[in-house]
């Protein structure tokens, strides 16, 4: 606090100095000049971002029709065919990854919020482990995806001999989305008022009964938000799956099959066959799915805040 007060004092002096030099109208002129620049900057930012998505969606729609969506890619050099199998693979992979990551992530978050903050955790060992766990989540969140890919390649593809398969890819993908699920679930659990827990415990319920019947239902929209966020990560991820999924354009028959997601398909179309039109079509579908996922998240988080406000 001390140093802050000092900086404020110094800044105060700066302002006083400037006031001596300049008159009010000049100061206002400076302000409007810089605000104009900020407005222009803001507009440019939005325009750039709109340009990227708008261009891909606009160009992409030229390639999209029903045929494009329901025929499988033929794997030819000009990227003939549609994207049906890649949609299937994406869904398959999303389901597998979420099925692996959700129980682990939600479980971890429950422990970190509900048990680790207990006052009666006196064991130094346990405290150390909890600190490690937090460190683990933060570190995982910062590791670039190609490292997850490399790891998945070394452990699941080679060492455990799962080969390039949906299984290897979804295990590597689960590591990638784990921190997302843990963090959002932690936030959702922390948002549940203490009184809920106290009420349930006072009625004689055990801690686990309280969590299962009171805390989890109350935080469900938040947890689902985390899961949907992870779905978005898996749909848009490429690097991890590029080195673990193999890239076959056929429909996977089992979890040991190779495959390619929509994002991977886009990459192969653009890089290997230079079929930019089809790539744009795939990109447009990808952007639309991300928009849909975002709308869902916004809807859920609005419901979450509305629900909690209604209770309090």
């Amino acid at each position, binding site marked *: 606090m001390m140093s802050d007060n000092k900086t404020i004092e110094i800044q105060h002096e700066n302002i006083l100095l400037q006031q001596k030099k300049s008159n009010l109208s000049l100061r206002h002129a400076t302000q409007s000049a810089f605000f104009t620049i900020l407005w222009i900057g*803001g507009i440019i930012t939005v325009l750039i971002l709109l340009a990227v998505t708008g261009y891909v969606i606009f160009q992409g729609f030229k390639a999209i029709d029903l045929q494009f969506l329901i025929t499988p890619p033929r794997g030819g050099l000009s990227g003939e065919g549609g994207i049906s199998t890649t949609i299937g693979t994406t869904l398959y992979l999303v389901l597998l990854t979420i099925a692996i990551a959700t129980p682990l992530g939600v479980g971890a978050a429950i422990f970190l919020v509900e048990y680790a903050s207990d006052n009666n955790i006196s064991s130094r060992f346990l405290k150390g482990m909890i600190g490690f766990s937090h460190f683990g989540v933060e570190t995982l969140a910062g590791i670039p995806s190609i490292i997850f890919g*490399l790891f998945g390649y070394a452990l699941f593809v080679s060492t455990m001999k799962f080969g390039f398969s949906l299984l290897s890819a979804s295990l590597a993908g689960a590591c990638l989305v784990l921190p997302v699920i843990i963090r959002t679930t932690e936030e959702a659990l922390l948002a549940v008022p203490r009184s809920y827990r106290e009420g349930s415990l006072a009625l004689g319920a055990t801690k686990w009964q309280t969590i299962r019947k009171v805390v989890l239902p109350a935080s469900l929209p938040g947890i689902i938000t985390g899961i949907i966020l992870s779905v978005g990560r898996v749909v848009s991820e490429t690097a991890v799956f590029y080195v673990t999924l193999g890239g076959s354009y056929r429909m996977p028959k089992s979890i040991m099959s190779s495959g390619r997601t929509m994002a991977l398909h886009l990459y192969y179309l*653009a890089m290997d066959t230079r079929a930019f039109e089809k790539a744009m079509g795939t990109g447009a579908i990808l952007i639309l799915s991300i928009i849909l996922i975002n709308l869902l998240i916004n809807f859920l988080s609005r419901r979450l805040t509305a629900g909690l406000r209604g209770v309090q």
Partner: protein
Amino acid sequence: METRRIVDRGVKYILFISAMISIVIVFLIALFIFREGVEAFNTVGVRTMLFGKVWRPGQEQYGILAMILGSILVTIGAIVLGVPLAIGGAIFLAEVAPEGIQAVVRPAIQLLAGIPSVVYGLFGMVVLVPLVRKIPVPGNSGFGLLAASIVLAVMILPTIASIAEDAIRAVPQSYRQGSLALGATHWQTIVNVIMPAARSGIIAAIILGVGRALGETMAMIMVIGNSVLMPSPMTNNPLTLFLRQARTLTGNIAVEISYATGVHESTLFATGVVLFVLIMVVNISARFVMRERQAIH
């Protein structure tokens, strides 16, 4: 003891185990990347790898200096192009923009952070590379550091802007009111009070942007050209350096892992080790800056 008490106990241990999974994964990642990379460090030598200028796996030359430089140069390019816009955008959103515009722009930025990197890469290939190719320098192919920097700048813009905006919003209202009450204009308040107070948060935002830039893979492969030569200016003008094709550390791993074997494969894991260490340094410094900020408030 009642069954429900036993269940209660059991659940606690199961949850404890799942809470440990994240640190176990971090440990496993470090273990596997290092274990597979150790062979390269031993046979090639750490110094020869890190400072070797030639990457020719066919002739057993495994210098990754060109890739390290590629990653650093493209990150610098992205920061130079992206940070002013991102910080300007953050100030605009937090301080200047009317409510209505905020309500539209903020979800848009959130959306853009989620767009797949291959889509940005595709846009770069189809739109940016032909534009860059128009710059009249002999040997300019369009693919290269400049196109990659622009693509990367757009990709890290949402990340930096949203974290910086949070930092600006976290400045207590009393600071603003104090400054305004002293007769400062809104702009003077922003420059002299709010920005200094939000400084560490904004720096952390930039550092996290650097982390994202260093880790980006697919979009880079698509626009940077993937040449393994040391980047150098193409004419007397040193800025033509950015028209050179290059390769990033991430790209080196992704492009070659599918067919590499033996020492070559091991060098790719060693490349991963270098990237891992770089990113850890960046992330830990970001966390350090963030913590400093929490200590102040």
